[in-house]
């Protein structure tokens, strides 16, 4: 059977576009043509895939996951993957006025001309942008309204593990690592199209692919009070959908020729993922659950990829990314190797420093001392709170790191903290200020003129973490704790910054929400909610009034959950067991730590035995494959 006829094969002419684009800010966001972007002849492929990042171009282009999927799909001869990003409101307005649909950068085709539209979900506050993209792209918003001619709409990325508010709009979620999964979805689509069967068959066959969650195959029932009573799979869909894990990163495809944006992206550097997953087990951290187990790349592979990317892009900086890059034992060796063997003069940077003197040494090695700034994330001010969240950092570690920083020539130390953590008291909050004072004093004693910049964000208890049952403490309470600190953190050598509590609040509602919030997202989109992740753009009152009209109480979603309650994301299996999370929650209440599974015996989170995987670790000197420590 041949290709399906699409509604709209027309593309926007360049003449039309270039005549009008001068009316919008940063028009180059919409013109593409970047180095290493892939433009295939649509007639030469059988599946056209539009990869949509629901935020502005500069943010989307900094997203490594999207670059990986773009590379994976375009490596297939039968598939063309093109990109689209959310248009800024001025562009959306111009598009509507000119009758332009949301189009991809590569061929300027509207979204609804594609076979598959895939969203990359990195943040809950992009939900309204997802609906805007579908609507502007001419794709029916509701999964149930889509017919045989419409694209298959899928979504991946970490948020997919608990994106129930989008359940009615997304045909299928791809859970976990996309390296294999993306291609399997394309294969499944091709097979269905050749069969000529109805769309429902496509969704059912997708549900057979491990890692694909088809929300429409689950009937959800609520009690009168709004509690989830049952999530029942139908048509043979699995009771729980397991996240996919790509077990050996050494074999993973990697975008060694990444698309290089002309416009400066948010993170303007080459990225090499040195490992996936994290062993530290911080109890607040969702990524800590969703990317288990740790899988490291060999140091030679990291260096080789770094060299190739630098040569193919012309970047002058390569970032060795992971959830905790200083944990990578051969890190020093890799940095030195890249610095000495890179094809052009390049710097190396680490996105996430550990709070210890070793990390400070590393950043000195990276030549960052000259710039004056060092960022550390103790996450909590008091030792008690750090034990509660299992951030295995002692006061001594913090002071050692600060000492090492000042003696290496850093004068500015930026500290990241959270407030609103479970069991937090005012003393714990004020301990943040105390710590800042001590560091400032240390800097002064060491003869520098230090600046301690404290940055505080409100804690949202996230799904799939040990704190998923905990309540969000509320917007007013976040603000009260902010003001406690605000009063203390004034004076010379101190800076205080905090996140917008409105965003934290909306994030708490959306990330912990169930399917009933879909109507709220839809209504908020219709009334103009866009780019809610941008503080200036968020209209919280609009969201709250949409909730009111849908007779939904925000407090229902931010409240503490009962341990025997069915949670909206319980049917999505991250590998880590609920029993383990409950044990961790109990330990948090006892202020008891759980050691890093790199060094200590297995704490039994469940991922490895249940999914048949194992941590892949490299030794400090680790050079040969034989040195890899696979069997734990």
């Amino acid at each position, binding site marked *: 059977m041949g290709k399906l006829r699409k509604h709209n094969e027309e593309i926007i*002419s360049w003449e039309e576009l270039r005549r009008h*684009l001068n009316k919008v800010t940063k028009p180059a966001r919409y013109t593409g043509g970047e180095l290493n972007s892939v433009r295939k002849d649509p007639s030469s492929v059988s599946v056209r895939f539009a990869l949509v990042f629901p935020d502005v171009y500069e943010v989307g282009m900094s997203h490594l996951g999207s670059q990986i999927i773009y590379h994976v799909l375009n490596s297939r001869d039968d598939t063309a993957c093109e990109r689209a990003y959310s248009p800024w409101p001025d562009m959306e307005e111009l598009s509507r006025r000119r009758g332009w649909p949301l189009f991809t950068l590569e*061929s300027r085709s509207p979204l609804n001309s594609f076979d598959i539209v895939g969203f990359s979900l990195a943040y809950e506050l992009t939900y309204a942008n997802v609906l805007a993209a579908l609507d502007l792209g001419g794709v029916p918003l509701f999964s149930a309204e889509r017919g045989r001619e419409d694209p298959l709409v899928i979504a991946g990325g970490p948020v997919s593990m608990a994106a129930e508010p989008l359940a009615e709009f997304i045909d299928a979620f791809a859970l976990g690592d996309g390296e294999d999964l993306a291609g399997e979805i394309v294969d499944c689509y091709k097979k269905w199209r050749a069969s000529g069967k109805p769309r429902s068959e496509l969704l059912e066959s997708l549900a057979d692919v491990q890692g694909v969650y088809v929300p429409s195959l689950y009937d959800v029932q609520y009690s009168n009070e709004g509690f989830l009573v049952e999530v029942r799979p139908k048509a043979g869909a699995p009771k729980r959908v397991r996240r996919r894990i790509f077990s050996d990163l050494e074999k993973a495809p990697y975008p060694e020729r990444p698309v290089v944006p002309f416009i400066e992206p948010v993170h303007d550097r080459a990225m090499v993922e040195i490992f996936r997953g994290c062993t530290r087990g911080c109890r607040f951290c969702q990524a800590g659950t969703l990317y288990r187990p740790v899988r490291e790349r060999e140091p030679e592979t990291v260096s080789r990829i770094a060299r190739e990317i630098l040569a193919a892009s012309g970047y002058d900086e390569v970032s060795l990314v992971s959830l905790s890059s200083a944990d990578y034992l051969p890190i020093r060796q890799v940095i030195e190797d890249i610095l000495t063997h890179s094809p052009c003069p390049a710097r190396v940077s680490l996105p996430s420093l550990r709070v210890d003197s070793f990390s400070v040494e590393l950043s000195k090695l990276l030549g960052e001392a000259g710039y004056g700034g060092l960022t550390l994330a103790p996450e909590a001010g008091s030792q008690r709170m750090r034990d509660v969240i299992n951030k295995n950092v002692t006061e001594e570690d913090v002071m050692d790191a600060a000492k090492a920083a000042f003696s290496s020539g850093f004068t500015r130390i930026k500290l990241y903290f959270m407030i609103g953590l479970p069991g937090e008291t005012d003393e714990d909050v004020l301990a943040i200020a105390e710590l800042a004072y001590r560091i400032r004093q240390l800097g002064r004693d060491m003869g520098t003129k230090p600046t301690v910049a404290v940055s505080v964000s409100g804690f949202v208890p996230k799904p799939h973490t040990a704190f998923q049952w905990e309540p969000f403490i509320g917007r007013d309470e976040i603000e009260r704790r902010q003001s406690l600190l605000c009063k203390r953190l004034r004076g010379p050598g101190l800076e205080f910054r905090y996140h917008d509590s409105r965003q934290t609040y909306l994030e708490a509602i959306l990330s912990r929400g169930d399917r009933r919030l879909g109507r709220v997202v839809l209504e908020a989109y219709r009334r103009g909610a866009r780019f809610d992740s941008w503080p200036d753009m968020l209209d919280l009152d609009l969201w709250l009034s949409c909730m009111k009209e849908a007779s939904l109480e925000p407090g229902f979603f931010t409240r503490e959950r009962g341990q025997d309650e069915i949670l909206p994301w319980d049917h999505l299996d991250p590998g880590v067991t609920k029993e383990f999370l409950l044990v961790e929650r109990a330990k948090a209440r006892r202020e008891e730590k759980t050691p890093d599974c790199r060094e200590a015996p297995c704490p039994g989170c469940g991922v490895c035995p249940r999914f048949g995987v194992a941590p892949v670790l490299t030794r400090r000197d680790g050079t040969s494959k034989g040195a890899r420590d696979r069997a734990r």
Partner: protein
Amino acid sequence: MRVRIRYEKGDEQRFLGHLEVMRALVMALARAGWPVAMTKGYTPRPKVEMAAPLPVGTAGLNEVADVYLSEDRSIEDLGRSLAEAMPPGFKLKEVWRISPDETALERRITASTYSVLVYGAEHASLKRAVECFLDKTEARYAREVRGRTLETHKWPDGPEKSREIDLRPFVSRIEVVPRNEPALSAGNRTQPLATFREISPPVLKMVLRHFQGRTVRPAWILDFLVKYCGLEGVDPRESVVDREWLDWGDGGSHDSRDPRK
């Protein structure tokens, strides 16, 4: 070693701003492996000097930039490696060595030649507006951005500072010519919307002077024609501007490269 390059910022990448073009060039030089010298100071940057920045939306057929190298290389090797490394939408046209103590490019440029597609205008009315402009001895213009006058310009023979600028002395030549599509070699990359019909708009050619690095934009001239010379039906933002050539004075080595000659 100081090297001058002539390149094209093509049709497809016309919406890049000056800094983005600079970034694209610097990254291309890195890919090409040119030993670019670094500036001194706290944050060393590759020593690349660009002349007469192009605004967002304007393509440039023959832009020039100077690159300083920390070691000598053969011009042939430099040209070959950079031509391969240029990003899509850009084209390297020429590379030649110049004396290290030659005057900065910016200071030497005397004029820019532009070709402007004027959408919404009829040939005759555009011609009348141009004649009206040429009859003026003074063309005072305040540039407006989103309804606000921002610019404080200095201009030759005028008061030191003003919100306004006299466009007239900058205009060395201005005329309406028949449309010569495709204006740029990059061309259209896709066929137009089936329903989309475009009546070929008239083309305005202009040569605008530079005084010590200062010049005016074609869009300002067009805006002036709309506001003060009776040009109707034209939204200056919709004009498509290409800079075809830069002149750098003294009848220097550039003359032989001017395609108009």
